[in-house]
């Protein structure tokens, strides 16, 4: 127990301290009057705005979360299918992989208005945009994982008469899990940002819409409040991915002490 506590203070402690110092510094700068209050609200003002507007923020948050999650699920599925077929056919990999890279160089803000023109102001264009930004890290992660599968392990499976689908399901997929989760964590963070960006450029609800509204009202403290909320939402999704990762790959999180204990037991 004490060791656990120690671990937390050791790993997260310095970062928490930095954040705290930044907040205190920010508060001091705001209070000193060096920067006009309407340009830089103090953390306390931001917190106040956050509490005051909570009901509105919550309803917008639900919309954004829905778009982000739906887009993420579709994006991950698309990413998986892409990685699977490109791994199975080398020719397809060579033909399509550069295209995938190019697709990621197109700025999101440039596609979003087009999507709004094509699909209207409701949820569809937002989900599509989230899919576009989330499938890529998943595809790349999985592909890398599939291709890095131990060749000798593949030879072992073949020598046991394994069929292609068996090698894929029983060897390649579990081998690629670490890379998959790295990709998924990035995709989770992108999904919220993607949804917000698409809301800026057209829509009736969502945190991005709220953002554009408070911006035109020059309500800077509300602007900061929503920025923190979006950031927290991304962190929450990433943390959920982390939890899932631990559940799927318990063998990666065996304590070193536990390992030693077993060796002692053997000898």
């Amino acid at each position, binding site marked *: 127990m004490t060791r656990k506590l120690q671990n937390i203070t050791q790993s997260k402690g310095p970062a928490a301290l930095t954040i705290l110092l930044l907040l205190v510094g920010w508060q001091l700068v705001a209070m000193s009057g060096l920067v006009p209050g309407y340009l830089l609200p103090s953390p306390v003002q931001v917190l106040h705005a956050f509490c005051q507007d909570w009901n509105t923020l919550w309803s917008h948050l639900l919309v954004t979360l829905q778009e982000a999650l739906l887009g993420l699920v579709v994006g991950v599925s698309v990413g998986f299918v892409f990685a699977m077929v490109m791994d199975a056919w080398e020719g397809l990999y060579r033909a399509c992989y550069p295209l995938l890279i190019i697709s990621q160089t197109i700025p999101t803000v440039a596609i979003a208005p087009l999507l709004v023109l094509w699909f209207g102001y409701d949820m569809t264009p937002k989900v599509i945009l989230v899919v576009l930004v989330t499938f890529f890290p998943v595809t790349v992660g999985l592909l890398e994982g599939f291709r890095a599968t131990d060749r000798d392990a593949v030879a072992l499976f073949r020598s046991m008469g394994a069929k292609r689908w068996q090698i894929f399901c029983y060897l390649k997929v579990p081998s690629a899990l670490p890379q998959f989760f790295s990709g998924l964590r990035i995709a989770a963070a992108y999904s919220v940002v993607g949804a917000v960006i698409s809301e800026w450029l057209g829509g009736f609800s969502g945190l991005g819409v709220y953002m554009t509204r408070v911006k035109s009202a020059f309500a800077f403290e509300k602007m900061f409040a929503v920025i923190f909320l979006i950031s927290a939402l991304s962190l929450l999704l990433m943390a959920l991915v982390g939890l899932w990762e631990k559940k799927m790959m318990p063998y990666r999180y*065996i304590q070193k002490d536990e390992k030693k204990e077993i060796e002692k037991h053997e000898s």
Partner: protein
Amino acid sequence: MERLEISKVSVSFGTRQILQDVSLTLKEGELVSLLGISGSGKTTLFNVIAGLLKPDTGSVYLDGEDITAIPGQVSYMLQKDLLLPFHTVEDNVALPLILKGVPKKKARAEAVSHFREFGLEGTEKLWANQLSGGMRQRAALLRTYLFSSRVALLDEPFSALDALTKRSVHQWYLQVMEQIKLSTLFITHDMDEAILLSDRIYVLTGQPGQILHELVIDQPHPRTEAFAVTEQFLNYKKQILVYLKEGQ
């Protein structure tokens, strides 16, 4: 009839010939070693026997049936133990049965029923990476045995172990072999290991690799470590050294 027969196998990669007219046989219950320096094509020969590689010429017969370039006929234990980190020990061992379509529960039960015999009891639910080197070898060997009890190909199975562990694993291995009577073809570059474990030794030399000599180790089983310090043991060793030198 021979259990396994390799007849005049030749393999080349591009212009480089790896194996030339290699022939050998393996009887039921026999342990035969393939001894040679690295680069003499031992592993290539195993890939041919396992059906992973099609030879340019020559054939592989299992109980008289032509199995050239047909994988999934003999058990093959590669140089690395290749235990999968994402499975428990029992699931790793049960893998060949699961690939054959045996339901998971049944495969696991079948695998676990051999754990005592292989000195693996108590490790069923551990992750593969929690095992020590010697235990990993045992698990890999049991996995090999569960795939097929007809013929096993073992490619330097003990080369990654340190000298002391290797000695105890040898003793253990000789005991297990007494019980399971597996027909085994065994790659090694360790002369002591070959003499201690084998009924016969083929010496593979040259580039391309050829089998020019065969040595019968006419000693009763089970052999103990005491055998390794006898005059006879040394004579076998001298003979092998002569064969290896001739091949260069």
